[in-house]
């Protein structure tokens, strides 16, 4: 049986990842956030990444604006095309709001979650990570696994490859690899953790 402590951690991790993918604004992109990220990276053995981030931020006149520009180019509107829209349908059906969007929403609903009024599209990376964090908090391991397998992993690798290829700032490459690390691991070990 998984300990409740580890489940909480899973949930927190997902939420941390989701937060990191939000549009960078001073209200959350704080010194405290960066300290947390560094701690996480160092615990994972990502010393080089911490150094790289530090170097990039030190070299910048306006670190937040740099990240805003990078976020916009990668995820909102690039010139003239957005590099890696953070929506699953784009990778699976080459459109926003495809069939996949409906199915993912149904899945959320079947596990007791629905979208808020001003939410982004249901298949957005942020909401998928948020959903994962909620089901992890609910200790609903089967939902977490099924979601990863059916909905998350089929598109995420294509998305992460595009971010890795197109990113010019190390921040998103690092965040994406953290997400990749945890979602892959989660799937790999999920069944075993549940074997009791």
């Amino acid at each position, binding site marked *: 049986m998984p300990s409740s402590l580890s489940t909480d951690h899973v949930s927190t991790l997902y939420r941390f990842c989701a937060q990191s993918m939000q549009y960078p604004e001073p209200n959350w992109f704080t010194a405290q956030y960066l300290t947390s990220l560094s701690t996480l990276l160092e615990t994972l053995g990502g010393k080089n990444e911490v150094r790289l981030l530090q170097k990039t931020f030190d070299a910048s006149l306006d670190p937040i604006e740099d990240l805003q520009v990078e976020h916009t180019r990668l995820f909102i509107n690039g010139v003239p095309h957005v590099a890696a829209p953070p929506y699953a349908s784009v990778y699976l*059906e*080459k*459109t926003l709001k495809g*069939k996949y969007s409906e199915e993912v929403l149904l899945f959320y609903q079947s596990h007791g979650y629905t979208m808020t009024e001003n939410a982004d599209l249901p298949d957005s990376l942020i909401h998928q990570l948020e959903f994962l964090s909620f089901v992890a908090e609910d*200790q*609903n*391991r*089967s939902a977490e696994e*099924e979601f990863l397998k059916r909905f998350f992993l089929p598109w995420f690798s294509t998305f992460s490859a595009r971010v890795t290829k197109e990113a010019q700032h190390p921040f998103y490459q690092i965040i994406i690899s953290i997400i990749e690390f945890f979602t892959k691991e989660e799937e790999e070990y999920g*069944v075993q953790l*549940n074997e009791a």
Partner: protein
Amino acid sequence: MQYGMIIDLERCVGCHACTIACKAEWEVPVDFGRNWVYRMGPSLVGTEMASTYYPGLCNHCEDPVCVPECPADAEEMTFTDAKTGKTATVEVAATWKDPFDGTVQIDKARCLGCGACADVCPYNARYINPDLVDDVSDEGKADKCTYCKPRVDAGLEPACVQTCITDARIFGDLSDPDSAVSRYVKNGAVGIEPNGGELGPNSRYYGKKKDMALLMETQTPELANLSHVRRRAMLASLVKPAMKKAKNIGLLGVVGAVIAKGVMDSNKEE
């Protein structure tokens, strides 16, 4: 009854509305199509300049070559005549010719995804839809034009006919001599037979002499090499059920665990 479609090339302007409407109606993956429009020419037909279109789709043939190639196990299916309510029970594989309306259809749940039917169709009217996967086939399922059977059964026109901007597509019952499609046939509308084949295509073309000549000259297909198709189909029928079995066992294990977990969870909540 035999449903058929006429494409009147005198009216067709090659606009592609039919292909895009079909994509939207049946959510066909972007890289595939259940129908198509090719432009031929301008080139000389004899001494005359000509240019026309080949708006193609499944021919729902009198004697379809695709149906007998399906390696899926035959099962009894009951068909109903939409008009009279009469029923008939026939043993069919995963693709068949409907005994009442004459359309050629696919049971996607039973389709093995082997592609034999797609390979044998001289018109390339079938493709394997990679989005449609299940435990029987993880490579996809055969898909093609159904003459919009679900729409037609609901009393509507096929999506391509409804959107056609010049009424160049006419749908109806070829066995009814008074239908618009039959009148076109009387006036000379013909299907495209493959070289050396007699499949009886029920999608038929009507147009100026030079345009019809250009169509036939450039679009008459060859029959597929049956031995190739059959070897693949045979392999599929041997291998797929085995794979399916193996998969089902694995899957049962997982599903079992999930259900058990689900029960435990709900108990806890109570």
